[in-house]
């Protein structure tokens, strides 16, 4: 009997110490995730406009990714941190990050796939450089002519990227702002508006049914 009580005591304290050890380990993981996600959200907020999230925040995203992976691989902690309560803070945060990341198509132009967009970035630089050069030379009226070729190249490249589904939010925003500068600020690239032939065609075509039906009405009793 006298052995039993100390034995019980020892077992219990071991269990308790194991418990505290577990908690310590998990809280470390928790902290790791917290700081990673804080860094990531800060980055997102900073790069909202102009949109540069995919490239700039890629590293932070990776960090969040790995810290979450650490939690999920540790079976004890994943139960404790992800499933033990209704709030499910970590799980929900993680879900919203991945959701945002994928809806911006960021995987197509950041990290390993970043090279794909190098050309696009270079061309954008060229176009903007061209704009700037002309501004500096005080010849904005020449922009449409001088930068036309470069701009068209850029646009075509963007369209081909879009065709492959590679137009992530960064690219789309960059392209949109360049296009806006091009067409609104410098008034370039307005497609030729030929109202006359279209109008003539409209009138011609609208006469067609009239002629057809009146001929039917007249010649076929």
């Amino acid at each position: 009997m006298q052995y039993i009580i100390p034995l019980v005591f020892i077992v219990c304290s071991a269990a308790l110490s194991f418990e505290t050890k577990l908690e310590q380990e998990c809280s470390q993981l928790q902290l790791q995730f917290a700081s990673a996600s804080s860094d990531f959200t800060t980055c997102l907020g900073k790069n909202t406009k102009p949109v540069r999230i995919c490239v700039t925040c890629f590293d932070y995203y990776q960090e969040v990714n790995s810290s979450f992976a650490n939690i999920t691989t540790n079976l004890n902690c994943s139960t404790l941190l992800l499933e033990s309560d209704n709030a499910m803070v970590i799980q929900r945060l993680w879900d919203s990050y991945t959701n945002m990341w994928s809806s911006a198509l960021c995987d197509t132009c950041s990290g390993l796939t970043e090279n794909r967009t190098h050309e696009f970035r270079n061309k954008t630089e060229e176009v903007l450089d061209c704009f700037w050069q002309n501004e500096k030379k005080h010849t904005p009226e020449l922009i449409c002519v001088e930068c036309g070729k470069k701009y068209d190249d850029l646009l075509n490249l963007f369209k081909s990227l879009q065709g492959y589904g590679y137009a992530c939010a960064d690219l789309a925003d960059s392209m949109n702002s360049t296009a806006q500068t091009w067409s609104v600020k410098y008034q370039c690239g307005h497609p030729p508006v030929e109202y006359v032939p279209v109008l003539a065609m409209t009138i011609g075509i609208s006469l067609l049914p009239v002629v057809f039906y009146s001929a039917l009405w007249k010649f076929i009793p």
Partner: protein
Amino acid sequence: MSDTEKEPLLLVNPATDLTPEETENPPEPDPQTENVDPPVSTQPDKAQTLPRTSRQLSFSFQERARTLPSRQTSDEKTRILDQSFAKTLPSRQTSDEKTRILDQSFGGTTCYGTSAPDAHHRGNYNVENLGTIQSGFKKRIGKRCRNPKHRHMSLSTHHGPDDPRSYLSSNYESLNYDTVENDLTLQSETKREYKRFSSTSFNRWLVCFLIGVFTACTAVVVDIGIERLSEVKLDLVRKYMLKCLNKDVCSVLMPWLVWAGLNIAFCVVASILIAFIEPVAAGSGIPEIKCYLNGVKIPRVVRIKTLLCKVTGIIAAVSGGLACGKEGPMIHSGAVVAAGVSQGRSTTFACDCKVFKEFRCDHVKRDFIACGAAAGVAAAFGAPIGGVLFALEEGASFWNQSLTWRIFFSSLVSSFFLNTILSTYKGSPGDLSNPGLANFGLFEISNYEWYELIIFIIMGVVGGLLGALFNYINIQLSLFRQRHMKYRILKVFEVVVVAFTTTAVGFCAMYFVEDCTYAQVKDTELYNLQMQCDSGQYNSLATLFLQSPESTVKDLLHSPIDKFSWKSLLTFSIIYYCMSVWTYGLAVASGLFMPSLLTGAAYGRLIGVLLHYISSVTISEPGIYALIGAASFLGGVTRMTISLTVIIMEATRNITFGLPIMMTLVTARFVGNYFNEGLYDEHINLKQVPMLPWDPPVKSFRLTAGNIKSTPVKCFKAIESVETVVRMLKRTTHNGFPVVTQVPTDPDAKHFGQFMGLITREQLILLLIKRVYFNESTMNVYGDIAVDDFRDMYPRYPDIEEVDIPQEHMKMKIDLRQFINLSPYTCNESVSFARLFNLFRSMGLRHLVIVNENNKAVGIVTRKDLAKFRKWRKQGSSGVQQLGIVSEDGNLDDETECCQGHS
């Protein structure tokens, strides 16, 4: 009138005219009837079998009714009839009398036996009579209708004598839903083992399953075909659009020419299929299926050739950019699939799989066709319950529980298989997110404020008005087409003109309406055209016009508010309205659902967007207004209510919108019905199909069976010579012949011998083909026939001219007794039109023999006799009109009469 004096005689001996002695001196007060009473030979017919108890009862009822004095008011009559009905056979009658009564009742269940002796005095129904009967009628019209011999004047119906809607065509045959019950079938039923019954029941479910699967496959073919062709077309157009942004390279009209050229090429294919190969595949096919389920046989409507033309045609027409959808034709396709699968063979390809033989009759086939139509709806909209309700609302007049259950099964199978195949095709098998061809997408926010219900109802009114106008214009256009499109090639030309104009108008709209949006991350580039927009921007109207109608509907329902400007929406809805009015009725396969939904959704979204700008209170998303707009307009055009509500609910997978959609649809229907009928019904009228509506026309209660019956009837004796049968079949076009004890020699006879049963033309032809006749002298029977022979021949029986009978066989006799339908429904002359109508419609009859009080055949009522009395309704007033019957060569068969009333 001496009816009252004569009646006690009848009371003493109710079966007076059975014995020939008394027939020669009949106690008939009416001299007219007396004159025409034919000489009857004294040879009694031996072919009488024991009738059933129900017949006894009904006969005793009839007998007692006949004993009533005619002067009594109808109230009194009813009371006395009730009393007499409460008793069973009078006990004081001798057993001899009873037997005679039983004998007399042989050959038919007498229905509604309120025999009024004055039925003869009313004479044949004519306008004079109506004028007096329906006292509240307009005098002017009564005068104009006075002379029924005149051909046109009497058609002062609201359509006029030149309008095809004032006539019914006699080219349409009825389907025979009433099962034939003769000695042959009864024998084969008794011989059948229990196992056979259960295998039939299993086969029914198997057929329903197969219908679902094959309908889904058809839908997949249509969907993928349209998707592929449109992609190819738009790719080419886009290339030219980009190229011709530079004015020096090519003209701005160049892409349009390419676009128009491709569209025209597709549309020519679509129209040639219809105009030259199978005209019945034109349009959505819903009117045709509606007629079929109602009991009218539209020729070639459920043939495999029709299906092929329909499927190819709809792929070509939708890819050709016409304002039409693929959903309506799916219903027709489903019906054809059902008709083919359930018969287990194809007469076109002359292959017989030797299965499902027991389903080869009108009655069962109709049930399966209802399954097919429902499966088509389920495949089109992913709405299995909507499909069941569609079959209920638009189709089946005869409904039973187990059929509902099987229809639902077919629908679910169809929806599930479509879902599985399309998901696999789109690269995510098992995803199951494509339950129908048209998928309206999910609403994320689906709440609305209570005051918005009022706006929804107002939109329902507007939808009803727009729909009524739509129907009016389309019908006028269809009338024009019927009159002036005499040559097939003109129909193709018209399609070319429409295709050309549709393309041109769309192009102009894109060009002149500036509505530019920036590229979104996930836009599909194929449908984004820059047009005249600034660099990097896209024309949103071009997106609306170019992408598939299904995606456009989704866009209109779910896009954020600033995606489309009010200018785009207005232009789009007006153009689509005009184009779909113009397109429906062309010689192409074209559905009406999608263009109506698009027009309505654009107009609804327009209202939603405008309300957002002007209102100070909370207004729901414009997408919800788009949905209500779509429902209201579609409801205004088709006047469907319950099935459409459920279809839309299922397509959006949202029950919250059930109430507003229902309120909108009901409003739209009421408003639209004030002006005209639904478009499908109007087209049925245009085709002069003798369709029976749900209810008999109001104000028809004064008409009786005696008024409307066709007389004299062509009858056969129980044993008839081959020559007589052949001559009769060649001389007449009738399809049903009463078999009577005696056929009068006098051609003007008003009535015939006692009615024994009914035989159809198909049966007679088959008897002749199988040579089921005997030599009278040697009693040598030639051919033999079994029930399966009738099924093998179904549904295409040869014409009598194709039957080859050797001259020496002409003298042979046919014994019809084994083949006549022993228990067809019959009616007394005094039965009211409304009861006759209900009996006819609910039992799906083809012929209804009218007998007099002595069970002698006096006339026959067919579908056309009932359908020609049609309700008309215009702007609050309504009445009954009588349509003329017109045969294929355009001649009027009947004298046309009319009656009209205002309420």
